[in-house]
């Protein structure tokens, strides 16, 4: 193997590995959001929920050093805040776009304030316990593919498992059928004995769980510290991935991979050094997501028919 092929294969290995790594958090958030949207709720508040989950996991890991507990706490914090969102969306029947959007501003204010409150006197960002890449004994030694696929962190494999579970639950269980019926035609679902409110609450809570976990994932397996700007629109990208994946968990996983690939390109290209400005690569994932949901490519995305429509029991 001469030098240049070694270089190319190293580049590809680094790029693929980073793609999978970066796709993880947005995929978890997108999986949760799929349940909310299939039940008829557009939860724009996941951007803020991810931030709150990130803060919760950071503080838990900082205080206790237990990473799995931190991930669990992040998930529970996501559920707790989405209970408020669900109440706003479903019981109050407030506009979902407005509520979600303002919740994001609220979450930003809350997270910033709480972070300063707890770590007010600490100047430098503290290092916390984080997930380390796994070392699978046999498969990990396969050249290029081995470290890429078998050398990710534990939450990545959890996310993949969740994608499969989400697919099965949505399309192979009566709960999934009831949830999708609620999002397509709530009146019909209601007359078939399905509680529309309960289904929508569950969908929104699941999106909160996914978003909270995504925040924990982001902090515990990628960044290792907390900043107000840590989420940087990944919640919105997750929303785009749900559309990109046509409200289907497995297709969302593919869409997340496309996003991760674009995001990783910027890291890898910086390593080998290109003349193009880094901001061009930084903007790429957003541009690709915009193009993906613009309707330019593929068949027109058809959302659940009752998405964003509040339901009043007749």
């Amino acid at each position, binding site marked *: 193997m001469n030098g240049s092929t070694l270089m190319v294969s190293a580049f590809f290995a680094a790029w693929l590995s980073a793609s999978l790594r970066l796709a993880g958090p947005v995929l978890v958030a997108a999986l949760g959001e799929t349940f909310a949207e299939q039940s008829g709720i*557009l939860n*724009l508040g996941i951007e803020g929920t991810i931030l709150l989950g990130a803060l919760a996991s950071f503080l838990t890991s900082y205080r206790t050093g237990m990473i799995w507990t931190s991930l669990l706490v992040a998930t529970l914090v996501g559920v707790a805040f989405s209970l408020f969102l669900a*109440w*706003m969306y479903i*019981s*109050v029947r*407030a*506009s979902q*776009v*407005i*509520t979600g*959007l*303002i*919740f*994001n*501003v*609220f979450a*930003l*204010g*809350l997270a*910033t*304030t709480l972070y*300063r*409150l707890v770590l007010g006197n600490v100047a430098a960002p503290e290092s916390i316990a984080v997930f380390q890449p796994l070392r699978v004994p046999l498969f990990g030694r396969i050249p290029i593919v081995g470290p890429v696929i078998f050398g990710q962190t534990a939450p990545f494999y959890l996310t993949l498992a969740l994608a499969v579970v989400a697919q099965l639950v949505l399309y192979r269980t009566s709960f999934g059928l009831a949830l999708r019926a609620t999002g397509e035609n709530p009146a019909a679902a209601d007359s078939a004995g399905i509680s529309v409110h309960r289904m929508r609450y569950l969908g929104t809570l699941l999106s909160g769980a996914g978003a909270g976990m995504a925040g924990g994932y982001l902090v515990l397996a990628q960044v290792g510290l907390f900043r107000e700007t840590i989420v*940087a*629109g990944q919640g*919105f*990208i997750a*929303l*785009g991935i749900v*559309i990109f994946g046509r409200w289907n968990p497995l297709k969302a996983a593919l869409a997340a991979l496309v996003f991760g690939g674009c995001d990783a390109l910027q890291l890898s290209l910086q390593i080998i050094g290109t003349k193009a*400005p880094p*901001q*061009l690569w*930084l*903007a790429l994932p*957003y*541009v690709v*997501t*915009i193009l993906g*949901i*613009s*309707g*330019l490519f593929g068949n*027109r*995305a058809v959302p659940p028919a009752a998405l964003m429509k509040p339901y009043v029991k007749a």
Partner: protein
Amino acid sequence: MAAPGNPNVTKLFERRLTPADSPLAVAGTTALAVCVAMGIAAIFFHHYGASPVQAYFGLFHEPFGTLHGFGYALVRAAPLALVALGTIVSWRSGFYYLGFEGCFVIGAAAVGWMSLATPRGPHLGPLFLPLAILLSLTVGGLWAGLVAFVRVRLGGNEVLISLMSNYVARFFLQYLVSGPLRAPGSLPETSVLPHDTWLPFLVPGTRGHAGILIAVAAALLVWALLQKLPLGYELIVTGFNPAAARYAGIEVGRRMMLAGFFAGGLGALAGMVEVLGSQHRLMDGISGNMGFVGIIVALLSRLNPLATVPIALVYGGMSVGADAMQRRAAIPSSITFLLESLAILLVLASDIFRFYRLNFTFLTRFKWRVSPGEDSA
């Protein structure tokens, strides 16, 4: 005594068939919601050892009790009001545009570049501002109009596309200030814009600049457009009932694209006002979340253009007061984000209370039920 299942049973909260929508009920629930939000924020103030009364006094005294602070409040209010006006035009036309952060940045970048690039000379003086307004309206209008085009012609979701376009705009500005427009020095920012391109200061000794006049003029124009002109009527019908609008011969798609163009132009104008009036140079993060806070201002104005300027002044004033508190008492100014957003969330939530009637007979009955027991004993 009322038995369970008896339809005459009295509950403390009784559901109404229609919400109470008298002005008193609306004002009452709104005031209650704001009070609860202020109460929750007071917990945070308390943590920093500030009494809530002092804190709230400080929040409003600096911007509205001192001339210097009021100047700053005007500075903050002008871009917020312009973003709010953009929100009103687009949302009332049924185009849920959320990309004002991006428009703000694009407008600021275009005008900042124009200010740095135009050759100096006395002949340009009075012409610069009209040209800058025209430029920002055009670039912002095209930026948002593109999203409207995608929505109308391709069926893309404008909410998400506009949210993500904010990040694209931000990276574009980052590129400008760290690359072609970067001034020599350690920070990625441009050099200070030439003085003769600044917006004039209104009150000597304060930072208050003419941007607020632009905001007031824009508010009047938007009000006139929506309330007095046939075009505005068509925009509102488009937002209210697109099917009816189409039936009445209104070209819904074109009207929506026009609304997007206006909204983006107003958002970019906010960026222009900020860069020419207040920052006087371009740097990353120039929008400071105003593209979102402006939307909140529009909502608090209940999408009424004439209410935007006073409400933006209150909001801008609060952020000035918060900054003063941060300087003096080290209370993080992010608390105001918390307070403002919580207030509007609870105002939205308070609508549910108008569906219920508080039953005072429940309370009297409760007393009555106790007294016969005492009699028999």
